[in-house]
C-alpha cells in the first residue's frame, strides 16, 4: 500500500484527522490509567485475610448495664460456653478486633527493651485458646495458648502477657533469618518482655487502611479477654451452617442475659459482609473505572465510524474514479484501513506519552504506583484494533462504490 497518497489526502481533511488522533490519544491515556487503577484495587481486594471467611461471622455485643470488669468477665465466660453448645457452631472466641474490621488496637513492637524509635507496627488481637481454631488459622511453628494462660484485661492497664503468638509476616520482619520461637518481644511500649510461643500462618491486621500498608499482615495474639463495654464474639459455624449459626447465636446470647445490645442492623455480620465493607471503596473505584473505560472505548469507536462514514460519503466520486482506473475493491478497503492505522499510530504515540505523564502526576498527588509498560502496550494494541474494527464498516461501504460513480456529476 502506498502511504504517500494517503498522507496527501489527509492534508485535505486535516481537522478530522487531528480530532480522531486526539481522541485516540486521550482515550489511551485515560484507559491505561483506569486499567492500572483497576488492577491495583483488585490486587488489594483479593488479598487473603488468612481466616476461614466462608464459615465465620462476628457478633458485636455492647453491655447495656456498664457493669464492672468482673461481671463482664463472668458474663463473657458464660456467653462463650452457651455459644459453644449450639449445634450449628463449631467454635467461638472473644475478640477486640479482627482482620478487615477497620478499627482496633495497634501497637509499636520492639525486639529490644531500649527506648529507640520503634518502627514496627502490629495489630493486637486479644485472644483465648479457641481463637486460632475459630479463625481457622494454623500455626506454622510453636504451640497454641493453654486455657490456664488466658487471663483478662481492663483497657487502661498495660498489656503484661508473658506469652504471645505472632503472625508469619511479623515473625519474618522482627526476626529475619532466624526462628521467632522462644524469642522475646516488647509489645506494650514498656519494658515488659513477652516470649513468642507460636507463629501463625498468614493473618491480616485489623485494618486495610493505607497507613497500615507496610504492616498489613502484622498481628500479635495476646492471651486475654479484653473487658470493655464492647465485646466481639468471633463465631465459626459448622461447614455450610453459617446462616443457621448466625440465626441461633444472638438468640442464645439474649437467653443468657437481656442486658446487652446487639444492633439489629449490623450487630451480626458475616465475614463476607466484613470484607465488602472493608474493600467497598476499592471495589467501587474499580467498577467506576471499568464503566468509564468501556463507555470511552465505545464512544471513540463511534466517533471513528461517524467521521470515516462522512469521509467516504465525501469521496464517493474519487473512489469511483479510482475504481474506474482499475483499483480493486481490496485496494479501496486497504486504503481506508491504512489511513486509519496511520492516524491511530500517531494518536497512540501521543497517548502513551500522555498516559505516563498523567500517571507521574498521580504518583505525586496520590499514593499511586508507577504505571507499568505492559498496561500501555495493551492499551496501544487495544486502541489500534478498535480503530481498525470501527473503520471496517465504512471502508467496506467505500469498497462497494461502483466505478460508474465516476461518471455521475453528484
Amino acid at each position, binding site marked *: 500500500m502506498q502511504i504517500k497518497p494517503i498522507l496527501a489526502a489527509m492534508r485535505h481533511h486535516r*481537522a*478530522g484527522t487531528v*480530532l480522531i488522533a*486526539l*481522541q485516540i490519544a*486521550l*482515550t489511551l491515556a*485515560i484507559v491505561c*490509567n*483506569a486499567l492500572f*487503577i483497576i488492577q491495583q484495587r483488585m490486587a488489594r481486594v483479593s488479598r487473603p485475610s488468612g481466616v476461614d471467611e466462608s464459615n465465620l461471622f462476628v457478633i458485636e455485643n*455492647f*453491655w*447495656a*448495664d*456498664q457493669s464492672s470488669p468482673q461481671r463482664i468477665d463472668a458474663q463473657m465466660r458464660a456467653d462463650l460456653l452457651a455459644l459453644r453448645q449450639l449445634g450449628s457452631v463449631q467454635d467461638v472466641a472473644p475478640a477486640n478486633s479482627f482482620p478487615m474490621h477497620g478499627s482496633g488496637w495497634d501497637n*509499636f513492637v520492639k525486639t529490644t527493651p531500649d527506648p529507640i*524509635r*520503634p518502627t514496627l507496627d502490629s495489630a493486637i488481637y486479644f485472644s483465648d485458646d479457641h481463637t486460632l481454631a475459630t479463625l481457622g488459622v494454623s500455626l506454622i511453628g510453636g504451640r497454641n495458648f493453654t486455657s490456664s494462660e488466658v487471663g483478662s484485661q481492663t*483497657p*487502661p*492497664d*498495660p498489656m503484661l502477657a508473658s506469652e504471645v503468638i505472632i503472625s508469619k509476616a511479623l515473625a519474618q520482619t522482627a526476626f529475619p533469618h532466624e526462628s521467632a520461637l522462644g524469642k522475646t518481644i516488647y509489645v*506494650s*511500649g*514498656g*519494658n515488659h518482655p513477652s516470649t513468642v510461643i507460636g507463629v501463625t500462618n498468614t493473618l491480616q491486621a485489623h485494618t486495610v487502611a493505607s497507613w497500615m500498608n507496610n504492616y498489613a499482615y502484622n498481628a500479635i495474639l495476646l492471651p486475654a479477654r479484653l473487658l470493655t*463495654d*464492647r465485646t466481639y464474639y468471633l463465631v465459626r459455624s459448622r461447614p455450610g451452617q453459617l446462616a443457621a449459626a448466625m440465626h441461633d447465636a444472638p438468640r442464645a446470647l439474649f437467653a443468657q442475659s*437481656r*442486658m446487652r*445490645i446487639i*444492633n439489629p442492623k449490623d450487630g451480626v455480620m458475616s465475614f463476607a459482609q466484613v470484607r465488602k*465493607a472493608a474493600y*467497598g*471503596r476499592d471495589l*467501587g*473505584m474499580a*467498577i*467506576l*473505572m471499568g464503566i*468509564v473505560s468501556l*463507555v*470511552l472505548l465505545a*464512544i*471513540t469507536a*463511534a*466517533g471513528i465510524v*461517524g*467521521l470515516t*462514514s*462522512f469521509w467516504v*460519503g*465525501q469521496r464517493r466520486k474519487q473512489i469511483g474514479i479510482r475504481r474506474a482506473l482499475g483499483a480493486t475493491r481490496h485496494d479501496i478497503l486497504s486504503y481506508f484501513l491504512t489511513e486509519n492505522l496511520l492516524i491511530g499510530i500517531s494518536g497512540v504515540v501521543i497517548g502513551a506519552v500522555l498516559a505516563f505523564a498523567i500517571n507521574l502526576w*498521580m504518583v505525586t*498527588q*496520590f*499514593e499511586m504506583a508507577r504505571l507499568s509498560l505492559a498496561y500501555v502496550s495493551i492499551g496501544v494494541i487495544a486502541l489500534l484494533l478498535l480503530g481498525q474494527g470501527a473503520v471496517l464498516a465504512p471502508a467496506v461501504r467505500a469498497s462497494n462504490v461502483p466505478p460508474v460513480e465516476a461518471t455521475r*456529476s*453528484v
Partner: protein
Amino acid sequence: MFGYYVELGLRSLKRNPLLTALMVMAIGFGVAASMITWSVFRAVSGNPIPEKSNQLYTALIDSRGPNYNNKGEPPSALNYTDAVALIKAHKAEHQTLLYSVSLSVLPQSGDSLPFTAGGYATNADFFSMFDTPFQYGGAWNASDDDGHAAVVVISHELNEQLFGGANSVGREVTLGMHNYRIVGVTAHWDPKPRYYDLFDGNEFGEPVQIYIPFNRAMDLQIDTAGTNNCGTLMDYGSGRDAWVHGECVWIPFWVELPTAADATQYRDFLTAYSDEQRRGGRFHWAPNVRLRNVTNWLDYQHVVPSESRISLMVSVGFFVICLINTIGLLLAKFMRRAPEIGVRRALGAPRRQIYGQFLIEAATVGLAGGLMGLLLTAVGMLGVGLLFESAIARLAHLDLSLVALTMVVAIFATVLAAFYPAWRAAQVQPAWQLKSN
C-alpha cells in the same frame, strides 16, 4: 430569526438520526459521569460551617518531642493534661474540648430493648461555637460545667425515638445506667464533614445523638469511644488515672478567635504554654504547636477521599473526550450541508448568519444531550452506593442546582465544541458549491 434557527436545529436533529443519537449519547454520558462524581465531590469537600470556618481553630501541642512525634507534626488531638490546662487558662472567649462517647439508652417502657447512642462529652461553649440549632430548650451553661451537672442535650432524631417528638426538656433519660436531665433538643443537625471530630475518623459518621458535660463524663469514668492514640510511648503505668494523666491523646480542642490578631495572640499563648511545660520539666524540647482553622484542618487531614478526586478528574477527562468526539461529528454533520450553505450564502446571507444558525443548531444538540445526561445522572445516582461507601454515597443527591448545572454544562460545552465546525461552515465558498451543483 432565532426561533426559526431553533426550529431548523430541531428538524436537523431528525435528519441524520444515527449521527444525532451518537452525539447526544456522547454528551449525555460525558455530562452524567461528570455530574455524578461532582455531586459526590461537592458533598465531601464542602465547607461545613462557611460563616465561621475562619474563626474556629483547633489547637495542637507536641507533647511527645522530636523523637516520637509524627515527622515533626504534633499528635492530632490533645491529651487530658493539656486540654484541661488550656480550658483553665481561658485565653479565648469561647473554647471547647470533646471526646466521643457511646452509651446505652434504656427506654422508659419495659418492653423495648436498650440501644446504644453515640455522641460527645463536651462543654457548654460547644453549642454556640459550632452553631448548633435547637428545637426545644438550649445548651447547658457554664455553671453546669463547673457543677459537673448530670444534664444532656439530645438530637431531634433521638427525641423522636424516645419521646415521639414531644418537648422533652426537663425529663430524665438513662444513659449508661445513669440519669440525665434533658436541657435541650437539637433540630436536625449533622454538618458534613464533621470537622470538629476528624480525629476519631467520624467525618462522615452516623449523626450525633447525645451531648453530655465533659466533667460529668470524666467523673463517671466514661472511656472514649473514639481514637486513643498513645503514639509509641505506651508506658504510662497502670490504672485509669495513670492513663488519663499520661501522654495518650484523645481530646480534640477548639477555640473561637474572631480576628487574625486574636489567632496570633492565641498562637503565642500556646507557645508560651509549651515553653512553661519545658521549664517545668515536662517537655524536653522547643515549643512545637499548631493552630489550624476549619479549612486548613480539613485540608491537613485529607478529608476528601483520593477516590473522589480521582474519579472526578477521570470523569472530566471523559467529558473532554466526548466533546472532541462531538466536534468531529458536528463537523461531519455541518459539512454535509455545504451545498445548502452555498445556496444560502449566494442568496445573500452573511457569514454571521450561517455562524449563528449552526451555533443554535449545536445548542439544540446540547439541549438533547443535557436531557439525556439528566436521565443518566438520575439513574447513576441510584448506583452511587455501589461506587462509594454508603456513608459518602448518602451525601450525594440530585437537587435543583445539579439539574441546572447539568443542563448549562451540556449546552455550554456543546456550543463551545461547535465553534470550529460552525466557523468551517461559514467559510463555505458559495461559488464552488453552486458550480458543482
